[in-house]
């Protein structure tokens, strides 16, 4: 579906301000009299707080106030469950231990805030942190997931019987029966390591309690402005419309910025009201690593049962999932892992068990991929193991088991993060792989390129994987589309934007319906005074869910334009049509009225008002899908490994993707390429490491390695399939996380293939040269 604007590679409307340094980000907000906040964070991962003496800090010149948990009185409470656990899964256990805004009595992860200083400048606030005496008695830290699960483990939460945060068992079919029928059963223990969202802009929060207007204005780098508003209003006992949350330009989201009920958004509104002053807090990079949520970190025990010809009969996966010290985000991540483990292939019997544990580490919430990369890594690694066992080609075993287009919609029998049974709505999973193998010239690589390279002593290897991406989940989003008296169109929606290009793609959706220029559509995201219903930007749902709401509202406005114009032009509705920026009579373009003028007329004045007046060329619409739409794809990586230095060059990276209808192919490519770079980072550079005492060893870009330009392949080759989703009128599926999902398993498979003589059996999703060296060393033995 390509129209005049929809589907076109249109340059972004937001670029000019970003490029010229004129776009407003959170740290650009300056309010006269504004104070600055800094947090004292615990150096211990697990400790009993004995004393926090802030008396010297309070005397520090320029310091306005210093608070510890005790100073907040009854206001101090553990936060709400941001995402409750699904009640639909029978027999599941879930122990809610939500984030506390500031540690009281005990600290449960290193970096947990223990005191907050408010001062005239950030420099002074940080100086005063040094005057605080924090005395705590360290306890042994809970770090190892499997040990944490044992009843004998030290406990993160003393009031619970163990570190069990959740236990969820789901089964489709009957795995044990299937296993009995199998010719081969392959089992492995696999690890998915932890990575950071690491948006280039850290988090930030500015709050101004306006005493005179009795209004609280908040600027935040949040992916969920409306839930944040509800949370703040609830905490402050204000009605929601007394709180205005505004998201300025945000320097990347990638998941962690979805979190609310953290120290900043809980404590700063209270302090701002108490001091009657605006306050700014900006996270620094070390704080971002210590105390902004991150993700992955699972240990899987998997088993795959197959027939001799490679047909999968069943799959079993029991996995430990680290939720960190608290579990405010429910079970979104491990549920995504469950639903994505078997989503590609026909697997009649599937048993999956989540063992979610509390540890003395930072809380785990979604990071681009959100449980999907773990599920896909596990399944793809097991397919590799099965292929080896059966001496099959990795592409062949996949082709054999991939779902066919005629099998959709397919109920999976597994309940996912959206609390309903998973339904794979549409796709051509085999088609993805066929196209991928063509693009990467798989046959030629296997028969000519690789043997030739091996003759020359080069270590070239290929990895080929398939994946799905559950996207476009509910609950709902909404939008209001309004035509102004100047003929320009404003669109307001409740989600916020972190660089995805919403200002452009939403304008394209509107422009297509209303036949106005894209640049005449002004999109407002993330300002709760402009639109106050919605959930937020996550799970590749912005363009799909909010986009569909915007489309729906545009269709209503279009109908209103026709009805109103018909009245003023004196012709039946079917005789009017949209010319660019105006409405004209079919066949008589000289008889027309501009949209601006029509908008003015749609606001009737005295004497012209009808009883059921609905003023303005304006409409509000919502969209709530029954369940998520599933994008899909396949990815191939060819690596050139130097077995001496273990420097790895990615010779080729090919990704075929199907996200249904495309709004803007230029921006689609940007989304895929960006996520691929994150996937490459995850596969070979990035890793969050805690030591056995719960100390974070990777709290700067010196130790947490971000993928750089020279780490990328020369060109990311991207192919597209377009299978429309039946779940929304435009046929869209999300794409934001796609590139990050298949990259690690493709990379690992390629490395194994390149070093085939070592017969490696890699279990880790996040490699680095020394890990591969260790694998080679162990294998030689």
């Amino acid at each position, binding site marked *: 579906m390509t129209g005049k604007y929809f589907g076109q590679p249109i340059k*972004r409307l937001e*670029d000019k301000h970003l490029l*010229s340094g004129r776009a407003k980000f959170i740290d*650009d907000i300056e309010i006269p009299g504004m104070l600055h906040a800094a947090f004292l964070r615990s150096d211990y991962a697990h400790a009993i707080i004995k004393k926090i003496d802030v008396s010297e800090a309070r005397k520090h010149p320029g310091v306005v106030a210093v608070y510890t948990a005790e100073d907040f009185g009854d206001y101090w409470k553990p936060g709400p469950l941001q995402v409750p656990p699904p009640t639909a899964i029978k027999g599941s256990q879930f122990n809610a231990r939500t984030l506390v805004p500031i540690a009281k009595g005990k600290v449960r992860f290193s970096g947990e805030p223990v005191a907050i200083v408010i001062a005239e400048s950030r*420099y002074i606030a940080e100086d005063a942190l040094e005057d605080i005496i924090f005395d705590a008695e360290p306890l042994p830290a809970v770090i190892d997931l499997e040990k944490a699960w044992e009843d004998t483990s030290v406990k993160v939460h003393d009031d619970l019987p163990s570190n069990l945060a959740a236990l969820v068992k789901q089964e489709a079919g009957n795995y044990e029966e299937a296993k009995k029928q199998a010719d081969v059963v392959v089992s492995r223990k696999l690890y998915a390591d932890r990575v950071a969202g690491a948006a*280039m802009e850290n988090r930030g929060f500015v709050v101004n309690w306006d005493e005179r207007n009795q209004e609280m204005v908040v600027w935040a780098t949040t992916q969920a402005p409306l839930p944040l508003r509800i949370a703040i209003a609830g905490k402050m006992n204000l009605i929601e419309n007394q709180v205005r949350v505004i998201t300025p*330009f945000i320097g990347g989201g990638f998941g962690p910025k979805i979190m609310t009920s953290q120290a900043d958004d809980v404590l700063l509104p209270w302090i701002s009201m108490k001091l009657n002053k605006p306050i700014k807090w900006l996270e620094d990079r070390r704080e971002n690593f210590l105390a902004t949520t991150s993700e992955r970190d699972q240990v899987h025990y998997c088993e795959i049962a197959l027939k001799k010809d490679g047909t999968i009969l069943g799959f079993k996966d029991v996995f430990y999932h680290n939720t960190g010290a608290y579990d405010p985000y429910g079970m979104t991540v491990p549920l995504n892992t469950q639903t994505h483990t078997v989503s590609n292939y026909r697997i009649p019997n599937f048993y999956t068990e989540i063992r979610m544990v509390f540890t003395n580490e930072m809380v785990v919430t979604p990071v681009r991929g959100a449980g999907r990369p773990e599920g896909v890594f596990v399944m793809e690694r097991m397919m590799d193991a099965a292929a080896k066992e059966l001496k099959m080609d990795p592409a062949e075993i996949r082709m054999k088991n991939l779902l066919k287009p005629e099998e959709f919609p397919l109920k999976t029998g597994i309940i996912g993060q959206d609390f309903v049974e998973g339904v794979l709505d549409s796709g051509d999973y085999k088609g993805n792989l066929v196209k991928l193998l063509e693009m990467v010239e798989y046959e030629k690589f296997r028969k000519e390129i690789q043997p030739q390279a091996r003759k020359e002593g080069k270590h070239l290897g290929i990895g080929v994987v398939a994946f799905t991406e559950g996207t476009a989940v509910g609950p709902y989003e909404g939008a209001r589309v309004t035509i102004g008296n100047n003929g320009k169109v404003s669109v307001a929606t409740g989600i916020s934007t972190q660089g995805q290009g919403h200002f452009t793609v939403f304008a394209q959706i509107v422009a297509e319906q209303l036949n106005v220029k894209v640049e005449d559509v002004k999109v407002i995201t993330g300002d709760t005074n402009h639109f106050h219903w919605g959930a937020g930007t996550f799970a590749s749902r912005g363009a799909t869910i909010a986009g569909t709401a915007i489309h729906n509202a545009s269709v209503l406005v279009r109908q209103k334009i026709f009805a109103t114009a018909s009245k003023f032009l004196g012709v039946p509705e079917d005789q009017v049509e949209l010319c660019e920026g105006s409405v004209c009579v079919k066949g008589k373009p000289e008889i027309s009225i501009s949209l601006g003028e029509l908008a003015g007329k749609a606001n009737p004045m005295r004497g012209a008002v009808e009883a059921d007046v609905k003023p303005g060329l304006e409409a509000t619409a919502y969209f709530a899908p029954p369940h998520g739409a599933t994008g899909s794809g396949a990815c191939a990586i060819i690596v050139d490994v130097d077995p001496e230095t273990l420097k790895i060059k990615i010779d080729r990276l090919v990704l075929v993707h199907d996200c249904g209808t495309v709004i803007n192919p230029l921006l689609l490519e940007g989304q895929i390429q960006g996520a691929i770079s994150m996937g490459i980072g995850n596969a070979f550079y990035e890793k969050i490491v805690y030591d056995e005492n719960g100390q974070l060893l990777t709290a700067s870009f010196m130790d947490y390695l971000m993928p*750089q*330009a020279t780490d990328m392949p020369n060109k*990311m080759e991207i192919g597209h399939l377009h299978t429309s989703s039946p779940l929304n009128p435009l046929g869209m599926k999300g794409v934001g996380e796609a590139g990050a999902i298949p990259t690690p398993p493709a990379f690992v498979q390629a490395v194994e293939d390149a070093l085939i003589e070592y017969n490696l059996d890699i279990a880790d999703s996040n490699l680095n040269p020394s890990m591969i060296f260790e694998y080679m060393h162990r294998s030689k033995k």
Partner: protein
Amino acid sequence: MTKLFPVSINVNGQVYERQVEARLLLSDFLRHELGLMGTHVGCEHGICGACTVLFDGEAVRSCLIFSVQASGHEIRTVESLGTPENLHPLQEAFSEKHALQCGFCTPGFLMTLVPFLEQNPHPTDDEVREAIDGNICRCTGYEKIIEAAQEASKKMSSR
């Protein structure tokens, strides 16, 4: 009272005289003393490159320099390139090639590429890749930034 030092810094062609603390970072000076918010601070330890500005024509990290060190020198920030109405060719190329998403790191890339393209008007892709290797972008995967730099080199040499 903290001791203040006089500084005189030429920023984007205009000389600013201020009294500053010795520890005031150049990035904070530009942003909060002068209100030039286009220079972004991403890591404050010199790795990400978002705060890159030109110091006497050379790309440097303004988070690793104290403002007192810049006294008597010429600084150029992203604000000196183009305006939204009249973009610099490199900025135009970034937009055409979709070389930015969230845009937070972008001023740093621009200020790294401006002197690079002046010294190397017809670079190879690998040379561009090397040139931007010290700037981190989390959104784009760099490919389109390289395309944009090449597009800019064409635009700039045809002017």
